[in-house]
Structures are given as C-alpha cells and as structure tokens.
C-alpha cells in the first residue's frame, strides 16, 4: 500500500520513468472508446416510466423494482419517472387492450430517443390466455419491443434478468440466446423442418387449420 502511494507521488512529481511508468499506466488506466463508455453510462442510468397495465404491474413491477429484496436500484434504474418525456424505458406490464393500445403508442412516441421497451409477461408479448375481442395479440403489433420476459407473471428474477439483457443490448453487446449458445437453430416450434427464419410447410398448414377452427367455432 505504502509503496503504491509513494509511486503515485513519484509519478505526480515526474520522477517515474521508463518501465516503471509503463507499469504504472497499465495498472491504472482503462482503455475504451467513447461509444462504449456512453453505452455503459446509459445502461446503468435508465429511468423507467412509472406505468402499469394489469396484474403484472401489481405483482411483478413492485416486487422487482421497489422492494428491497430484489431492488432494481442495484442496476441504476430506481428513479421511476411519471412523465414519458423524462423516461428511457417503458415496461409493458400486462395485457394491452385495443382501447389502451393507441394511448401506449402515444406514450412511447413521447419518450425521447434513445428509448427502449420491455414487454413483461405472456399477455403483452402474445396476448397470453386472452385470445379474445378486447386484447391486442402482442404489443409488437403497434410498437417495437427490445426484450420479452415470459411468465404469468414473470418472477422478479426474470424481470431483472430481462433488464440486465437490455443493459447488455444498450452497451452494444447483445446476448446470444440459448439457441445460439447450444447450436440449436432450427428447433423452433414454428420452424421445424423449414428453412431457418420461415415456418415449415406443415407448420403453415397447421396454422391455417387452427385458424379455421377458431374462426368457424
């Protein structure tokens, strides 16, 4: 400890030279570029919009964000903003009814760039169990979503995991999914047998058949 302090003093006096100086710099300076630093700063100071839609907002967000047990403040996002103009992140916490969708879209449009959206729970990702006249079948129909968190409602850990994924994305280093990690492309339910990125002929047929069933019921 003492020797390091002495070396710092020497450096400030300009007495450190040659190999010693190199070592000093190596120990103390992190090389980066401005974009990376900006991404790091951004990802650790996200202001989420104080906003809730349905039961996910009751069970998930307070558990994950507010309570000391899970505490989203660890990731620098505890400052909820009540105005979309001050927020960076909108968490769609619950089902989106067709009457609510234009309002959510307006909130999203009012947020300043850069902005992100997490769709939390089965409902806002896909309509969940509410396959009916009142609920939008997935919030992607009307706005871009960065991270989907599955569950009904998702565990607080899952919400925080989704949040850290978003942080990686903001830092320009998006995670590969588990399919990439395990080389499991082509095992998606809807793409079985088909070329990657397209549903197989059977899946497309099954989709039409299922649609028939529902429409004629």
């Amino acid at each position, binding site marked *: 400890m003492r020797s390091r302090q002495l070396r710092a003093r020497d450096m400030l006096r300009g007495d450190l030279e040659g190999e010693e100086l190199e070592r000093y710099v190596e120990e103390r300076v992190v090389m980066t570029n401005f974009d990376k630093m900006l991404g790091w700063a951004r990802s650790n100071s996200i202001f989420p919009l104080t906003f809730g839609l349905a039961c996910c907002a009751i069970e998930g967000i307070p558990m994950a964000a507010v309570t000391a047990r899970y505490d989203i403040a660890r990731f620098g996002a505890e400052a909820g903003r009540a105005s979309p103009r001050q927020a960076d992140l909108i968490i769609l916490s619950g089902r989106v009814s067709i009457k609510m969708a234009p309002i959510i879209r307006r909130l999203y449009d009012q947020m300043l760039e850069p902005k992100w959206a997490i769709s939390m729970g089965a409902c806002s990702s896909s309509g969940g169990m509410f396959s*009916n*006249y009142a609920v939008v*079948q997935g919030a992607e129909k009307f706005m871009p979503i960065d991270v989907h968190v599955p569950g009904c409602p998702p565990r607080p850990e899952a919400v925080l995991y989704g949040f850290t994924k978003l942080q990686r994305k903001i830092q320009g280093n998006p995670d590969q999914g588990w399919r990439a990690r395990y080389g499991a492309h082509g095992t998606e339910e809807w793409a079985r047998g088909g070329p990657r990125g397209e549903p197989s002929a059977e*899946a497309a047929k099954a*989709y039409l*058949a299922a649609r028939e*069933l529902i429409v004629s019921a």
Partner: protein
Amino acid sequence: MPDAPGLELIRGEIEQDHPGAVLDTGFEHGCASLAIDPAHVLGVLGWLRDAPGQGYRFLSSLHAADYLPAEPRFAVHYELLNRDRVERIRVKALLADPGEDSLPEIDSCVELFPTAEFQEREAYDFFGIVFNGHPDLTRILLPEDYVGWPQRRDFPVGGEPVTFTYNERNYG
C-alpha cells in the same frame, strides 16, 4: 326473498294493474324471479319500487344475457333489493331478436333508478340492446368506433391461433 306463494301474490297484484305483464315466475339459484314482457318493464319496476308493502327501492344490478338458441333470445335482468327486509327479487325482461339489421329495444329505467345509467350503457356496449329514453346511450368500455356486440354468443372469439406442435400433428 319472497317465498313461492308470496311470489304468486306479487304476480297477481301486478296483473291487476298491468294485465299480461308477467309471463312466468320461478326460482333460480335461490332467488325469486319474474319473467316479464319488455313492454311493461317500467310499470313492473315502478310498482315493485313504490307499491305499499313492496319497497324494492334499490337496483343492485342491471345486466343483459344472450340465451341463444332459446327464444326469446335476449334478456335484461334487474336485480332489485329491499334494504329494510334484505329481500331480493329478480326481474327478467325477455327480448326477442329482431334480426340481423336491427337491435332489440327496451325502455330505459334511468328515471326510476339513476344507477342504471352506466349499467344500461354497458349492456348496450356488449349486447347491442337499445334502451329507449336513456340520456346518453354510447359505448362505455369498448372504443367508440368498435364494430359488433362482443358478448353475444354468435360473436367470433377472435385472437390468433398458435402453431404448437400439437396443432401441427393433429390438424396439420
């Protein structure tokens, strides 16, 4: 709740003032009910509210139902409560389906029970039942430009099918 003879008594007394108003009486799920002709709805509700000895002064719920394929198809249910005796009675106004292009109609009871205002709008919103004389009969829960009456039984479910392996195997 009025017992069976009591209910018949009520029916008889209503018949004196409004002949042909009561179509049927019955007990469902522990509640006495009167099935009535929708043309007499205000008369019957008013009588139950004001006649001496009745005093069902509180409309605890108003809702609609679709009994497809039964005839008459629709019904508007009025759940009345006497708060002194804690007695309930259900009035069912049976409405026939007027066909594709027109909507079933019934008189609004907002004048008798102001609480009915929102509930009649809800019945209109979901079943397309028109309440004549309602001060502001518009959609209350669905978007104003919504087309259709989604709680009717012949309304398509909506949503989107999911292509699970199960569907693919069995229906593909």
